[in-house]
């Protein structure tokens, strides 16, 4: 398995190099996975399957014009070569119909990158047996996704990148009979049955806190602690155009006022795109080596994510961002709050484990709304009193990570994306928890 995908990609690349004509340039992206998906409900298997998929994304360039095509590969070298050549022919016929693209900006360096991580994955039988042993009597619901993921890139300029890793992601919830639930996750590249069992037991222990009667709060401003998983939802909103050079230049970024210098966050806040050490490929979908970037330093806007196209359009320097200019490994620097002191420092207020379904109620003001979900507790004098019924918040980032931010935790969590839209994600975030003086609840 270890070199099979790379060999297929290289064969396609050789075939493409032989087929291109003088004056033509290309980039070729590759994506493949062989995935095992097992859904659970009531700690039993609700749905199970295997998915084997691979695709290439070809961009053809000639005389300042460009067009792109993605094709699914069929696991048959001859058929796949034919499909790639058909795509080349279609793009070749398309280019003369197009105007010269003034924002065409190719990375013409011949960079090389290679990463192969092939830690063994568990047999499904082992996973099922552990779940049965540790949670068979519980109401467990969730999904186990596992298998190799590959990303490749090559260009007619000689650039070549390969990223391949085995990974697993078990994302689950345990439900109490009263409808309250605790959320948990075990994901990575190195599987340990002991660690998995410990995570299952930890979630079981947390479930015990949910048995107390639910507390209903009135709208208003509350002192609150946002655990790293809750912070991940807020960080996810910032990935939605927040740092994008295009969005910032065209009035579509929620961090427009920060980058314009009209607003700032707490000096405790420093966000980075921290690709090195993450699970993401070291190269972007556009075919440039990614860089670690300090996006916000001590509350002030610094670098932005600039794709090659934005660089040409807005006269900036490209810095290895993906074409959609979203972070793939967002990191928030830690603070000074020791994790074991969170409840004591919170005193009286909300302990929020997870947030859900965030969106902007006023994007230029970075004002966002969303809901509590899973284990959210009311705390008095540092003691958990009971779970809190679902509440909606509506507040500005300039409050939550600005004037209202009291501290961030010393410890951070590496959160691996559970997204499987189209394909399994390689994205991640590295975040501390946040203690805030006031979070506005509205419903």
């Amino acid at each position, binding site marked *: 398995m270890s070199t099979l995908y790379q060999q297929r990609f290289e064969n396609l690349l050789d075939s493409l190099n032989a087929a291109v004509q003088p004056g033509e340039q290309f980039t070729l992206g590759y994506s493949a996975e062989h*995935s095992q*998906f097992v*859904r659970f*409900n*009531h700690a039993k*298997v*609700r*749905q*199970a*399957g*295997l*998915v*084997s*998929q691979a695709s290439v994304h070809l961009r053809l360039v000639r005389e300042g014009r*460009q067009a*792109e095509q*993605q*094709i*699914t*590969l*069929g696991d048959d070298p001859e058929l796949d070569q034919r*499909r790639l050549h058909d795509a080349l022919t279609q793009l070749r016929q*398309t280019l003369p*119909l*197009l105007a010269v*693209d*003034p924002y065409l900006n190719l990375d013409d360096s011949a960079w090389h990158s290679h990463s192969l991580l092939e830690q063994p994955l568990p047999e499904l*039988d082992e996973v*099922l047996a552990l*779940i*049965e042993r540790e949670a068979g009597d519980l109401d467990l*619901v*969730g*999904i186990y996704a596992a298998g190799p993921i590959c990303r490749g890139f090559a260009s007619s300029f000689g650039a070549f990148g390969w990223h391949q890793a085995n990974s697993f992601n078990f994302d*689950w*919830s345990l*439900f109490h009979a009263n*409808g309250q*639930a605790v*959320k948990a996750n075990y994901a990575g590249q190195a599987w340990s049955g002991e660690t998995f069992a410990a995570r299952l037991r930890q979630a079981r222990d947390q479930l015990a806190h949910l048995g107390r009667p639910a507390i209903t709060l009135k709208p208003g401003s509350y002192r609150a602690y946002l655990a790293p998983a809750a912070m991940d939802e807020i960080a996810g909103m910032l990935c939605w155009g927040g740092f994008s050079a295009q969005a910032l230049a*065209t*009035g*579509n970024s929620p961090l427009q*006022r920060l980058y*314009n210098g009209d607003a700032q966050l707490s000096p405790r806040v420093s966000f980075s795109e921290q690709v090195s050490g993450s699970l993401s490929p070291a190269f972007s979908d556009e075919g440039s080596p990614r860089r670690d970037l300090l996006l916000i330093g001590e509350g002030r806007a610094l670098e932005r994510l600039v794709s090659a196209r934005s660089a040409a*359009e807005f006269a900036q320097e490209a810095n290895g961002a993906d074409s959609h200019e979203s972070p793939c490994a967002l990191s928030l620097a830690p603070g000074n709050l020791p994790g074991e002191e969170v409840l004591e420092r919170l005193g009286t207020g909300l302990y929020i484990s997870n947030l859900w379904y965030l*969106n902007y*109620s*006023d994007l*230029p*003001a970075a004002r966002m709304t969303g*809901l509590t979900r899973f284990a959210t507790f009311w705390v008095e004098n540092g003691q958990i009193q009971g779970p809190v019924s*679902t509440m*909606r918040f509506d507040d500005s980032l300039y409050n939550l990570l600005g004037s209202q931010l009291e501290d961030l935790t010393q410890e951070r969590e590496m959160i691996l994306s559970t997204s*499987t*839209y*189209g394909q*399994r994600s390689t994205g991640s975030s590295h975040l501390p928890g946040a203690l805030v003086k006031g979070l506005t609840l*509205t*419903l």
Partner: protein
Amino acid sequence: MFDSSTLLRQRFAALRSTAELFSLRHVKQSHQSLSVRRNVAEPPFFSQDEGAMLTVRVDGVEAYAATADLSQAGLQRALEQAEALARRIKASSLLDLSGRPAPDGRHDHVSPNFEQPLPNLADCLDLLAAESASVPKDERLVDWQASLGISVVEQTYLNSAGAELRHAQRFVYPGLGVTASDGLDSQSRSLGRENFGQQGGFEVIERCGLVGAARRVADEALQLLLAPNTPSGRRDLLLMPDQMMLQIHESIGHPLELDRILGDERNYAGTSFVKASDFGHLQYGSKLLNVTFDPTLREELASYSFDDDGTPASKQFLIRDGLLVRPLGGALSQLRSGLDGVANSRACGWNRAPIDRMANLNIEPGDQSFEKLVSGIEHGILMRTNRSWSIDDARNKFQFGCEWGQLIENGELKGVVKNPNYRGISADFWRNLSAVGDSSTFQVLGTPNCGKGEPNQVVRVGHASPACVFRQIDVFGGDA
């Protein structure tokens, strides 16, 4: 059309299996995405995707394997992988599906005007470029984009009980968006895009009204930039169809999905405030509320003859005169719950398994013209075009925002307001429905972006609705 059918049929017939039932769902889709942004054509993007999902039932346990290797050996290998997986999970399986009826029969479903040629790529780009160029020169207009997406999907479902169900469909997504900014605030106005998609040919672009719309859309973005914020307080709320579709989607569609009610989605998409025992009993809305699952409006985005499990689709009332009568549940969920449902077991492609989804979920027209709806409001607000959506995991507490707001006082439309937001609770909101627009206010809309499921899936859904009025809703604006 259906060029692969003969070969698929032959290969399916040659498959060998000991499973009590097995099926093949082959999906072939192509997509073309064109866009002109700020008068510059973006690189055209094309995609070609093809693969098949083999599903088996062994000793009452179902499992699948999805592959893009459509050779005889590739299909046979996937079938055997699915069989092996079904045996492996038997001891842990939630469901025993022994004896579950299998679909049979043969049928073809084709989109309206499927074979009508569309304008060629150069003509499409010219059309988009002309719209882009129509945006007036104004330094406050900082971003604008005209776009056109076209998807063609052919799907064939075959099973060992003899079914052969084929769909050939074309989906068209025109769009236009303009952003105005003064450096501190930004306001956007759009047409189509995520709010409009239909099956068909060039007539979809005409129905969307894309051609010649750029000046008006740009002017509305500038009006919003200069407008005051939406005032806070309780007002009667007149929602136009391009916001009604989101309201229907989030606070009727998702809560009525039977797999959520059965708990499958509790870890991701969520659960529902609706219980299985509510069907036939719960007064979901006022007596003016009539909601249908309707796969028969041919141009609507999710019209089809059979769902992806092979169940024949027909129009059904989910809510009649405000009373909740039927869930959105496909054949499997119906078997598990004992409730009658609809044909809504759907997958986004060959590499994802069908689950309960919305398809076309519509509100039936009432008897009031737009003028009558407005004249019946003393202190209210009109909102159109969704831009923000958020709702809790039980699909109850919601907050939605629109691009465009216009106050209504003493039965007359007044000034434009920006950042119009409103919030409420699904279980109460629909009981405040006080007037339903007639067919002159009715629009067939849809979005390609409904996400759900583990593993995740995005599917097309259609929503058709008249304009509707809701009494005494909590509305508010933004900070800027």
